[in-house]
């Protein structure tokens, strides 16, 4: 295995971060920590985009743009999510997802 950092290494980091995010998303019950896990997932995707852009299509800009857009959307998503979380906290005095189950049945 090549120790010189290359595309493969970035992809590995991206994959690891992605699955760490998934793990957090699956195991946490707190909405804020879940949101943080989602941010991790998004970041891992960004790493992949940038790495592909750099190592496979160096002359183009598309990877960068996707990353920018993802970051923008992530920001929007985080804002909306936090608004929802705060609203939920107001009505349930908790941000545990399992507390909000009125629509389950």
């Amino acid at each position, binding site marked *: 295995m090549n120790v010189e950092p290359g595309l493969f290494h970035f992809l590995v980091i991206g994959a690891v971060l992605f699955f760490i995010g998934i793990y957090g998303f*699956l*195991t946490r019950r707190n909405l804020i920590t879940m949101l943080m896990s989602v941010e991790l997932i998004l970041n891992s995707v960004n790493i992949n985009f940038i790495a592909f852009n750099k190592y496979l299509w160096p002359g183009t800009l598309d990877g960068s743009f996707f990353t920018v857009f993802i970051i923008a959307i992530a920001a929007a998503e985080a804002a909306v999510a936090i608004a929802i979380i705060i609203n939920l906290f107001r009505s349930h005095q908790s941000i545990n997802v399992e507390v909000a189950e009125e629509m389950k049945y």
Partner: protein
Amino acid sequence: MNTTNIILIPLLPLLSFILLGLGGKRLFGDKAGWIASLAMLISFVLACGVAMNYFGDHSADAYVGKVVFSFPWLPFGNGLKINMGALVDPITSLMLFVVTFISLMVHIFSLAYMKGEERFHIYYAFLGLFTFSMLGLVISSNLFQIYIFWELVGVSSFLLIGFYYQKNAALAAAKKAFIVTRFADLGFLIGILVLSAEANTLDFQQLMINLSSPEYTSAAGEFMGISVLSWGLALVFIGAAGKSAMFPLHIWLPDAMEGPTPVSALIHAATMVVAGVFLVARLYPLYSIAEVGVQSLISSIGAFTAIFAALIACTQTDIKRVLAYSTVSQIGFMMFSLGIMSEDHLGYTASMFHLFTHAIFKALLFLAAGVIIHYVHSNEMQDMGGLAKKMPVTHIVFLLACLAIAGIPPFAGFFSKEEILLNAWNNNRPIFFIALLTSGLTAFYMFRLYFSIFWNKPHHEQGHGKKEGSWFELIPLMILGVGTVLAGFVPFGEYVSADGKPHHAPIDLQFSLGPVGIALLGILLAAWMYFKASSKPEKTAAGFGVFYKAAKHKFYIDEIWLGFTKGVLFNLIGRPAAWFDRNVIDTLVKGAGSATQSAAEGIKGMQSGKVQQYGLYFLFGIIIIVSVFLFTQGGR
């Protein structure tokens, strides 16, 4: 031969059944009995006409059976069909006369005897149904037709035994009678199936031609080493044995005495119970070519039943039961006589003759017993005694009938019994001796009955100046009494024989000495024991010890049957079947249901509504699907 007359004979009682059954009380009120009796009278006259017409026709060398009328009632697809028809031959004519005659007597007798019953009209309706069925049975031209009417007489017997429906005993007796005969009918039915499949027809005449043809006998199949024909006949005989109360299927007849006494006279003495004998006689040509085993089955069962029932009759105290066992015993005589086949077919004539005479004197005995029971309001012998002076008419006719059944000349029973014994003497000595012994026993128990009722102790308890009975009761008794005296002189062999040719039955006075002697011995013994009240009967009974006790309890046959039905049918088969159904099969079904349910319970948790859990499943799902693709076709 007038076809309409023959059809009318059974139809008139049927008409009376329908009329009385549907609108009896409202339409006719107390006149119901008269309507039925009128219908019966016309039937009787027609039957006499048919018999005279038939026997009066000497043009042919022999009496041949004629199917005077027949129409297909139920065709089966395979060429077999049930025809409803009328076959007239000597025994049909005989039976038509006997049934209509006895039935008429019973109808008239019941006018007084059953008067005031709440269900008077229903009683007559049922009598009509019975008479119709019995007449239909005797004129049947088709094996299945006989089965149909066979069942119908069974059901009318059920209805009449259970006439006093609020008595539990009547219900039990009615059920027992029906079920026991039904059990035997199973044999009959299977026998019919066997015979019909062999002969490819159900009509008697064709059946006999087909099954006795050389082509058939050479190609006949076997089952378990016995020819199929013999199987069929043996099975049919089971049916006959059930209806005619042969051992061990006799248990229903004594209980059937729960019915009104005239019914016992009609059904359980004179007509229905001899249907089995009639059936065997009807198929006599086949039985005579069947294997010897079948014949000896018939004769040995008949003979055993005769002596067995006679022994029980000696110990019973209920007069109707004594008469019932006596009936069983006498039918045993008819049966074994049919079973002892010989070249001259004397047994056939003798059996039919005995059937004829027995019907008359046994009906007389029952009707007389009915009068006595009404007089003393009890069935038990010890409540009677000294009635000779109070009931002169009954006394005389009863005596006549007892003499007849005991076989004392010149009364009816003598002639017929003599022929039976002669046939046995000629062809089967062991049975002859059994029959001889039975004759003695018959004389003994009948006179035991006679002396206990009419002499023994003086009658003083009640009913001074009470009437013996209404004329409606006494006139039939007298007519039957006359019949008892005269019936024996009918030259029976001239008319009824196995091959239709006149048959001259010899009366051998020397031979008669034995039977008559032993009968007289029985009478004397009975007189010695019962003419005066004494302790002799008890002492004798004690002398016989266990044997007496066994006979008194009818040799425990009822208990054995009860044990069989309760123990085997109910507890060993029925209960496990019901249990099995509710607990095994249903559990399987419910198990299928609850398995589904628990599977649903199990996977219900997956639909938790928790996104994270779904995410987990989603992830696993993706992983599995991708791996499947990857490792199955990912090699490319």
